[in-house]
């Protein structure tokens, strides 16, 4: 039973009023006065080329220009998990759109004009634009110095190749597992690249003041991680953590695209180049598409063996990922999938190979779901196909194999609590699974149920901290560095503090991060901050509570154990008439009979680190470590209407059940379900990124890369919250931010097959592809080259051979 008063209730967002009145400020809204300089970068037109020379003299003389900066000025690399990204490229460019120089000018216009006057001479190199070319025997290597790149110990790049990382997981005896199987299905699934499309593009203003201190105002999910990456990369300038300050006002959406560091480091070095004056860099929408990070494309081979009763005996899952020109973050996506590509199923014999491959395409990185959306598409499609081949109910096969608490995961650790079977049952019931809906001559209706799971992908020492202080009126300031990226983080943290201290949420101000003032947070990624930072906030609140009670006990000569908090008062179990308002003493203390005061300003701190995790598993099997903290499991059911004439797909209903441990704010959980599901459906149905044969992105805008509007929503979305508490979560909470996207694509593919009998194995499943397939035509046969490509040719031709 929930005995909480605030946790578990649908509080109004603490940032709601600021956002609807326009009071909320974003990075590009901050005023810097007339001294502000503006920067524009010069971009590579080549996917792969040697830089022969850069001539900046004409640009430097252009009106309004104060300086032009190139790789000569800043010959440094950076990266979150591996230093393979260049602030400015040195000898070669590796993707179309890469920054080769930057012009700093008095106005944005002057900078833009002068950027066109920078003359760069290139010698084009053979470009690696698909996985087959990247992995063939005599492949052109994109990072010849790969062996020397600094990296985390759990990455295994292969020198002299384009393989940035190869995560292998081995459990049981895979050959035996397939021998035991009554039925084996093997097939290939393809998921292209996608773009995050936050409504706010990346923006940064850097100021290297005359004392040599660097301050950055950035639109970021990761202020502390940025400071850490910059402290390493900018060490040649004598800068350390203490000299770098990152301030992150409200951020206009992240979805993983503002995790780690991308263009912010350009802002940092431009500021260093212009000591004493602030410099602003604001990406255009086109730059947001091509020079931050994208979601990696993947081609996945799934081979699964099952018994007649549906039990999975073996899974061989091979995934080749297109990481683009940098894998400094993307390789960790590949790593996460390499550990978890069994999906939420108990499988005794497992062989996973998750391979991160460099190409001369824009760099990729974290994107909501962190690889799980990508592998679930193939895995869940596969499971439904196997069920049908066995004559089994696709819901039943999932229940037969559903993972349970205590099961051994592919890498040897034990599964955390979570009720997947109930999630499956609830969504099946919600969409009336088993009941055929009426289909007409032009419209057919299909249904599907798919499962999902996801763990935060974090280094083993990813941690959170919180500072909490009282004000004279009994209100509180909470200084954490988790980022409010829209999910409602600030509100949830206020609710947790409120639960402990009985101070209403409306009296708790939670500010966005400033690395000089707010407590440490690793990053706001992986759906982990409610859990991790929530634990830190709870600890800080408990410390404050202990100090409050101790102060009153000391001043009033009472036992602290008899005292408790209720409605912003300290009360006494032994004396019902005793009620001391917090506001009367939390700063000024309590006056004694002789006029002296005891107490003083009360504040508290808290921290959390998951001390049980370790990334040091065996590189050949992944056995021995404990790389993940926990998984959130769930299922989704979907009802799809297919227009048989046009191929247009309409989602009538989607139900998503997730075991969130404890919904701290059910309204915000629903917000994640509805928003995430629509984002997922868009990747399944129409978001479609295309490149020209020379590696140029063809559709870097919302005219040609469609994201959902008000007219593209499912008729109905049902959010079902299950609450099997997470033992180490704050009030039992687990994360839910990313998970809601994951089941979208497989449920669309499965429901389409259920409706009209066609199986599509390449995303997105556009109306065009469906209409063609209904007429027996394969899209790839008729598409034509002018529509561009994503990252592999025809998936069925892909060999998975590594030269």
């Amino acid at each position, binding site marked *: 039973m929930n005995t909480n008063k605030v946790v578990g209730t649908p509080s109004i967002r603490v940032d709601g009023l600021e*956002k609807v009145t326009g009071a909320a400020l974003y990075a*590009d809204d901050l005023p810097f006065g007339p001294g502000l300089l503006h920067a524009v970068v010069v971009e590579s037109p080549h996917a792969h080329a040697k830089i022969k020379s850069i001539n900046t003299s004409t640009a430097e003389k252009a009106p309004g220009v104060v300086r032009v900066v190139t790789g000569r000025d800043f010959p440094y690399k950076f990266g979150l998990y591996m230093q393979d990204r260049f602030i400015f490229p040195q000898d070669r460019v590796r993707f179309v759109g890469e920054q080769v120089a930057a012009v700093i000018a008095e106005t944005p216009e002057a900078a833009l004009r002068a950027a066109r006057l920078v003359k760069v001479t290139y010698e084009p190199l053979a470009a690696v634009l698909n996985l087959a070319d990247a992995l063939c025997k005599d492949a052109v290597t994109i990072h010849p110095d790969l062996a020397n790149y600094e990296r985390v110990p759990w990455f295994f790049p292969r020198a002299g190749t384009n393989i940035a990382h190869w995560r292998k997981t081995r459990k049981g005896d895979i050959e035996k597992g397939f021998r035991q199987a009554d039925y084996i299905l093997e097939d290939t699934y393809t998921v292209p690249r996608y773009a995050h499309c936050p409504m706010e593009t990346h923006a940064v203003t850097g100021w290297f003041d005359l004392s040599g201190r660097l301050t950055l105002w950035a639109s970021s999910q990761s202020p502390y991680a940025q400071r850490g990456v910059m402290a390493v990369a900018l060490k040649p300038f004598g800068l350390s953590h203490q000299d770098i300050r990152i301030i992150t006002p409200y951020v*206009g959406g992240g979805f993983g695209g503002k995790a780690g560091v991308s263009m912010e480091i350009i802002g940092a070095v431009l500021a260093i180049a212009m000591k004493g004056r602030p410099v602003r860099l604001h990406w255009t929408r086109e730059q947001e598409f091509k020079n931050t990070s994208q979601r990696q494309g993947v081609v996945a081979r799934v081979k699964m063996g099952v018994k007649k009763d549906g039990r999975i005996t073996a899974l061989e899952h091979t995934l080749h990922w297109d990481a683009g020109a940098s894998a400094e973050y993307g390789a960790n996506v590949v790593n996460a999938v390499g550990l978890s590509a069994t999906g939420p199923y108990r499988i005794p014999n497992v062989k996973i190979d998750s391979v991160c491959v460099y190409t001369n395409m824009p760099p990729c990185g974290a994107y909501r779901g962190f690889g799980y959306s990508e592998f679930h598409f193939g895995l869940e499609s596969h499971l439904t196909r196997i069920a049908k081949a066995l004559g089994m109910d696709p819901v039943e096969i999932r229940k037969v194999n559903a993972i349970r608490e205590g099961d051994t995961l592919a890498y040897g650790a034990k599964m955390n609590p979570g009720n997947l079977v109930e999630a499956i049952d609830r969504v099946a019931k919600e969409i009336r699974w088993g009941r055929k809906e009426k289909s007409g001559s032009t419209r057919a209706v299909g249904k599907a149920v798919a499962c999902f799971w996801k763990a935060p992908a974090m280094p083993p020492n990813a941690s959170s901290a919180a500072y909490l202080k009282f004000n004279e009126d009994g209100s509180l300031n909470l200084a954490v560095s988790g980022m409010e*990226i829209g999910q409602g983080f600030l509100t949830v943290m206020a609710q947790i503090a409120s639960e402990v201290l009985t101070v209403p949420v409306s009296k708790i101000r939670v500010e966005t991060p400033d690395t000089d003032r707010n407590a440490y947070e690793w990053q706001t990624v992986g759906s982990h901050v409610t859990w991790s930072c929530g634990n830190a906030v709870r600890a800080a609140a408990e410390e404050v509570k202990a100090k409050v009670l101790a102060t009153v006990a000391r001043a009033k000569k009472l036992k602290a154990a008899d005292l408790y908090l209720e409605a912003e008062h300290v009360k006494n179990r032994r004396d019902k008439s005793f009620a001391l308002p917090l506001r009367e003493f939390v700063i000024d203390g309590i006056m004694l009979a002789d006029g002296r005061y005891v107490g003083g300003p009360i504040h508290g701190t808290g921290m959390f680190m998951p001390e049980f995790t370790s990334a040091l598993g065996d590189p050949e099997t992944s056995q021995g470590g404990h790389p993940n903290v926990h998984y959130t499991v769930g299922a989704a059911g979907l009802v799809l209407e297919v227009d048989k004439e046009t191929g247009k797909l309409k989602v009538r209903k989607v139900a998503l059940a997730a075991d969130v441990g404890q919904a701290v704010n059910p309204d915000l959980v629903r*917000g994640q379900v509805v928003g995430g599901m629509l984002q997922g459906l868009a990747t399944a149905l129409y978001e479609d990124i295309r490149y020209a044969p020379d590696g140029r992105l063809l559709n870097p805008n919302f005219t040609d890369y469609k994201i959902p509007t*008000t007219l593209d929503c499912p008729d109905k979305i049902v959010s079902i919250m299950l609450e099997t508490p997470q033992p180490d979560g704050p009030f039992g909470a687990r994360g839910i931010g990313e998970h809601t996207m994951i089941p979208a694509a497989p449920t669309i593919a499965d429901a389409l097959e259920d409706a009209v009998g066609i199986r599509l194995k390449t995303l997105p499943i556009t109306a065009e592809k469906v209409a063609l397939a209904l007429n027996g035509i394969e899209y790839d046969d008729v598409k034509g080259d002018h529509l561009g490509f994503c990252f592999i040719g025809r998936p069925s031709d892909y060999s998975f051979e590594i030269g």
Partner: protein
Amino acid sequence: MKEITLHLNGEVRRIAVAPHETLLEVLRERLGITTPKSGCGRGDCGACTVLLEGKAVRSCLILAIETDGQRVTTLEGIGEDGPTALQQEFVKRNAFQCGFCASGIVLAASALLKENPQPNEGEIREALAGNLCRCTGYEPIVAAVRAVARRNAGKKRVAKRARS
């Protein structure tokens, strides 16, 4: 450069603008009005929506010089007596997440309600189809506008009864 006069949020503002400057640039960079956001620069996303003579327009597609003498209202200029009923409804329903699209959507929805005080769901979705939001899935946004529309319908019924 040409000096133009804007009736901006109830105040008269005179400013010299270059012929190629957009209304969005002039508002944000020159007049300190930051609620219209730049999300795409080509009229796709609606984050820069302002009201021009009461009509919702994309300020990134309008040259400032064209707006000489006209009434321009941004989010700063609505709700003189505190948040409007619509804004309150957005807050109550946790309608926004990151909030970057909020100013455009509040203005587009305000313009809709002024023109059509009782829009149905289809009319609301149609009117807001040019304002992209990547976070919410639109559900709470549409619900908030519907709530105001229903309240307007209630007021109308009361007024009708009072007249009869």
